[in-house]
């Protein structure tokens, strides 16, 4: 295992603490760079969704993970970004302009949401953001001159500097990947800056942050604005990927999915946002796999244990019926969320840290290292 000796503050906030990081991220980047030329177009398309969800995840992570302000209204920010792109595109505005415009507009809306949110805490903030989501959804459905209402809006193929970028080609994938990487690097730098420190201070204790001289209201609004702007950027890409947007795509369900991304990935880390996005996007192909292959596998296992062909066939059809039941996805979501909250509150990234530590400390690993302390109920009422 490698020991890092930090001798000054600069060491503590390095982007890459040691050369291993550069090597491993370099390898990952190389793999991502050749991905569209080796993988099937379906998988590349899934990767594009991973990039988009991960971008939203990073945005939400800034707000929820690092500033401690829960939001169940992020689908609305995504919608504002997507609709801005769709609307401006009709007037032949070039991509870079409406991309930035979408970020700017969602950022401003985010700040506007942030102001009323200043006085709210915990559950009241959650319900306020849910309300905001509903109101935006309804506005999208009613403001027909701009959004075409419930009919939805067609988004033209992206054209970048005169060249057409089809939504399933490698160029579009690289665009999304580029946005994700820029977002992550930007967020990492933000977290190293005084602003990011202030965010974390607010998350850990608002009172302490205030007494340290942090302007809590200002930083909360900033956090809302930055988070919303990033989500708006993702919204532009989302609109192009879907090539059709309508109000019923941006519901509370989607906001909950974003929360699932950061929760299952790992709530206090940027790695978590990416891992969570991978998880959320991959659950659909996984379910398809369950439907197609699981009955065969289970019937095969039954056959090896001496079941005759009729029973094996019965088992096959029963398993197939369960695997293709309508609500299976929801049930699996539900179980996974509950299990993660109960057993792995730090998410997939927390699990990864544990595995890494196990190998680093190999014969000396203690399970108690990550044991959660018993917490006695702390009332949030008189905070």
């Amino acid at each position, binding site marked *: 295992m490698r020991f890092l000796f930090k001798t000054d503050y600069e060491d503590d906030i390095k982007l890459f603490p040691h050369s291993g990081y550069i090597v491993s991220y370099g390898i990952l980047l190389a793999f991502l760079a050749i991905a569209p030329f080796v993988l099937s177009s379906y998988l590349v398309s899934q990767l594009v969704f991973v990039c988009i969800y991960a971008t939203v995840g990073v945005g939400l992570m800034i707000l*929820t993970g690092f500033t401690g302000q*829960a939001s169940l209204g992020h689908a609305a920010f995504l919608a504002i970004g997507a609709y801005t792109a769709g609307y401006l595109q009709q007037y032949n505005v070039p991509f870079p302009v409406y991309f930035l415009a979408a970020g700017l507009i969602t950022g401003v809306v985010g700040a506007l949401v942030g102001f*009323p949110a200043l*006085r*709210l*805490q*915990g*559950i*009241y903030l*959650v*319900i*306020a953001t*849910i*309300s*905001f989501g*509903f*109101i935006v959804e*309804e506005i999208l*459905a*009613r403001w027909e001159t701009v959004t075409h209402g419930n009919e939805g809006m067609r988004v033209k193929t992206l054209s970048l500097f005169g060249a057409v970028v089809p939504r399933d080609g490698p160029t579009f994938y690289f665009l999304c990947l580029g946005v994700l990487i820029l977002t992550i690097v930007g967020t990492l730098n933000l977290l190293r800056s005084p602003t990011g420190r202030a965010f974390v201070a607010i998350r850990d204790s608002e009172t302490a942050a205030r007494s340290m001289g942090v302007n809590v209201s200002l930083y909360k609004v900033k956090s809302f604005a930055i988070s919303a702007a990033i989500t708006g950027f993702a919204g532009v890409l989302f609109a192009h990927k879907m090539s059709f947007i309508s109000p019923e795509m941006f519901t*509370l369900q989607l906001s*909950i999915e974003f*929360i699932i991304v950061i*929760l299952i990935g790992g*709530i206090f880390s940027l790695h978590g946002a990416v891992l969570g996005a991978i998880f959320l996007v991959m659950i659909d192909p996984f379910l398809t796999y369950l439907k197609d292959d699981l009955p065969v596998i289970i019937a095969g296992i039954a056959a090896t244990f001496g079941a005759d062909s009729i029973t094996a066939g019965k088992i096959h059809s029963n398993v197939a019926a369960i695997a293709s*039941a*309508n*609500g*299976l*996805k*929801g*049930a699996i*979501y*539900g*179980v*996974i*969320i*509950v299990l993660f*909250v*109960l057993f792995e*509150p730090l998410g997939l990234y927390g699990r990864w840290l544990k595995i890494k530590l196990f190998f680093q400390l190999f014969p000396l690993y203690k399970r108690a290292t990550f044991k959660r302390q018993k*917490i*006695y*109920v*702390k*009332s*949030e*009422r*008189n*905070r």
Partner: protein
Amino acid sequence: MLDFVQQLVSGIALGCVYGLIALGFVLIYKATEVINFAQGDLMMLGGFFAFTFIGMLGLNYWLGFAGAVAAMALFGMLAERVVVRPILGYPQFSIIMATIGLGYFLRSVVGMIWGTDDFKIETPFSDGVLRIGSLVLAYDKLSVIAATIILCALLYLFFNRTTLGTAMRASSENMLAAYYMGIPVKRVVSIVWAIAAAVATAAGVLLAPITFIHSNVGLVLGLKAFPAAVLGGFGSIPGAVVGGVLIGVIESMAGFYLPQGWKDVAPYIVLLVVLLLKPEGLFGVHMRKKV
């Protein structure tokens, strides 16, 4: 004027249902500071239990009602034991997520077992109207209002006149202190969940004549009951009912007098305005920390 009264009564009836679900939120929040996002889904599940007992097994309405309430009380305890107790005291966000997960799970499982169609429970109040002059009031709506009043009175008596109720209030004030005073806090919490699930079931069954029971009804109504609880100030029992009635009346008035589309948004706009002016709700108490 007649229209107005008509809308008012149906708004109050709808609001009472919201209030009953909100009551469940508030009961659980008061005792454990847990926000149960699955409350609407508990209501939905209760409705389906009642449908199974009454519609499929052909039991008497009241018997089926009681059976569903009892079954759901047990289920509430089970849910508390499995999902909530291990994370009691952790940040609210984790608990919110856990109950959202529970809600997802219940919706899908109910969808898989009973299907995704609409179901109707035959009640003694299903048809029949009360005529006062030219005012026509349907029995099913009046029954909801009456049942809410009865349930609230019962809960009030329970909390103020019984030992168990006092124990619940004590553990909601300060769990650790209650524990030191010899109150079995864990058992109290699981009874609170049982009561909340039972109240939700009552709401579900009463609701059946007004809207049909389907696997998403909990989500839809839960999302309306939630503002009701917040509007009344989370943690205040009368507040929950008043908030529910307010939301119901606003919704029904907006549906009648305002252009289409306002009906679904009006309660949330009112909620946001109220939260802006009074961040702890209408009846909320702002507790100050003593330093």
